[in-house]
């Protein structure tokens, strides 16, 4: 084949070899009934030409890359984790460069990111019950997690084994523990639609921690850096006037600090 490939030949080649190709259990759904697949003899002639012609090779590559990306896109749907990350990435556009850098670094390990998150139900329905405000850690804590989340109030066993510890759930408060130290308190208030996060032991949380509050249905994520509380060893973040709904609250991990110099 001496002449360069025509557009039509390129299209037929891509369709025959990559798009319309039938597989053992699956044949392509979308096809043009008028076009037929190229015979092998013709495919070989074209490939022979492609191996020696950089111009045609670059044109086929361009059209092939497009064809495959488009087919993949048609089949593709982002999963819930990817949608959460996309929301955060979009919200980052408006942030200070130093915060942006920290969050991008934080997002690189999704498992660590997710291990430091809690679900927040703000004045909305949950499991069929209305106007619930609740903070909960649903997913099991994996070994990467540095924080362990617990509800603060423990009660005694009313019956059964007296040695069993029962946790009486104050559902709008959740504490974060590192080893035995209570270093974080998250509160949600239904009336004021507020989430308040208090970071105990200021030395430990350096630089001042960042949180991302991500609405799981609609709305933009809220990114906040904690401010130092006057006259006490604490950082605080308070977000008021939230819309009722479900949120994911992500707290910046602090593993590197802990490894270098554990202030506890």
């Amino acid at each position, binding site marked *: 084949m001496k002449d360069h490939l025509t*557009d039509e030949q*390129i*299209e037929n080649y*891509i369709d025959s070899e990559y798009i319309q190709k039938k*597989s*053992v*259990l*699956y044949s392509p*759904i*979308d*096809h*043009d*009934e008028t076009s037929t697949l190229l015979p*092998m003899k013709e495919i*070989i002639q074209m*490939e*022979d030409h*492609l*191996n020696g012609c950089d111009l045609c*090779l670059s*044109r*086929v*590559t*361009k*059209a*092939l890359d*497009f*064809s*495959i*990306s*488009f*087919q*993949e*896109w*048609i*089949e*593709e*749907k*982002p*999963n819930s*984790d*990817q*949608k959460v*990350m*996309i*929301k955060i*990435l*979009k919200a980052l556009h408006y942030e200070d460069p130093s915060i942006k850098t920290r969050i*991008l670094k934080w*997002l*690189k*390990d*999704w*498992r660590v990111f997710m291990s430091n998150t809690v679900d927040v139900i703000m004045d909305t329905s949950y499991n069929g019950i209305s106007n619930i405000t609740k903070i909960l850690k649903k997913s*099991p804590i*994996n*070994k990467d997690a540095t924080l362990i989340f617990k509800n603060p109030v423990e009660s005694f066993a009313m019956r059964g084994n007296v040695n069993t510890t029962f946790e009486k759930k104050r559902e709008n408060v959740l504490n974060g523990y590192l080893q035995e130290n209570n270093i974080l308190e998250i509160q949600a208030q239904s009336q004021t639609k507020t989430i308040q996060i208090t970071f105990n032991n200021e030395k430990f949380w350096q630089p001042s921690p960042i949180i991302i509050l991500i609405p799981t249905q*609609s709305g933009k994520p809220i990114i906040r850096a904690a401010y130092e509380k006057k006259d006490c060893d604490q950082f605080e973040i308070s977000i008021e006037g939230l819309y009722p709904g479900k949120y994911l609250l992500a707290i910046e991990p602090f593993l590197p600090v802990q490894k270098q110099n554990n202030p506890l």
Partner: protein
Amino acid sequence: MTNNQTIDETKKLYDEYIKLSAEQSSFLTTRLKSRIKLRFRKDFEGQSSDKKKLDKIIEKFISQTQEISWSRIKNFLYEEYHENQMEIYRMWMFSISQDLLLLKLISKRKSSGMSELYREYNLPIKAYISKNLLGVKGTEFFNNKCTDLMMETFQRFERYAMNFNPYKGTLFSYLISIADHLIKDETTIPETLVSDFNEQDEQDNTPIFWAISKDPSPDQLHEKASKEKYFLEQMIAEGGYPWQVLVVLLTKISDERTDITALSELPLLKLFQSMKTSFSESSFHDIEELEEIFKPLENQLMLILKNVIPTKDHQSRGYLHDYLEVKLADLPLSVFFGKDPLKNIRDWNHRVFKRLRKKILES
């Protein structure tokens, strides 16, 4: 025949077979070379442009293919009605060398290898799972379960790729055996016993290929979002008639194409509005961004039909003659369907895709 004779005969047969398979070298060289140049040029950087280096790599693949084909020749089947049986044999040899090429890339942790394997086999594997998994077929739950198992098949493949032996079977058969195990697990192991043990065991093996990884990567997600915006903009600008573009968008968000035909009596504007909401749920963009991207399509829907179909398109004008004075937004989709709506959906999907590709080739 004595045992010695049998061994000698087999050796002779082997030599003859290697000669026959060597005759296919030029075919395999051409195919492999173009495959590498078109699909894996970045992974063979420096080698794909250096003729001698590339020839050497391909030579290795071909000689291994010959050996493997000898050990698997008993599995080779002729296609009864095919005119050229040698072509079938050559294609079989090529499929072996293609498996070797993919395996080499995957073993070197090149994401293009997994990507190609996934592209080639994700739909057949999903079809296999859907056929063999127990459950109410056609429901969203069942479909999601099949997708999850298909993803899990590729994730497991990536972890155990080094156990694959090309002398015993194809990559596809290996994937099928993994899918079989998962289907069996699904039907026999109670849900409560499945989770922790496997997760702990396999936690450190982060997949290299993001599409099958449960962990999203910021850079790749960003790229996906930009690509989606580009495809949508191009489709709306160059994809064809608004109802065809609308159907392609509906196809993307529907599990079954009959879901679209069921809505065919709805006016296009209503269909467009509900598509937009559903699209935002399975898109990299939120509803506000989609509003902006879809604005030109919405504007087109506000036009009278005769202003949308060019005068030179006599066929469409003739077919839709009764509706030419009606606003496109008020017309139901059924007006544009022929006798077989599913065929229309299939054709429009293919045509829109071809129009966009043509533009790429022309640019």
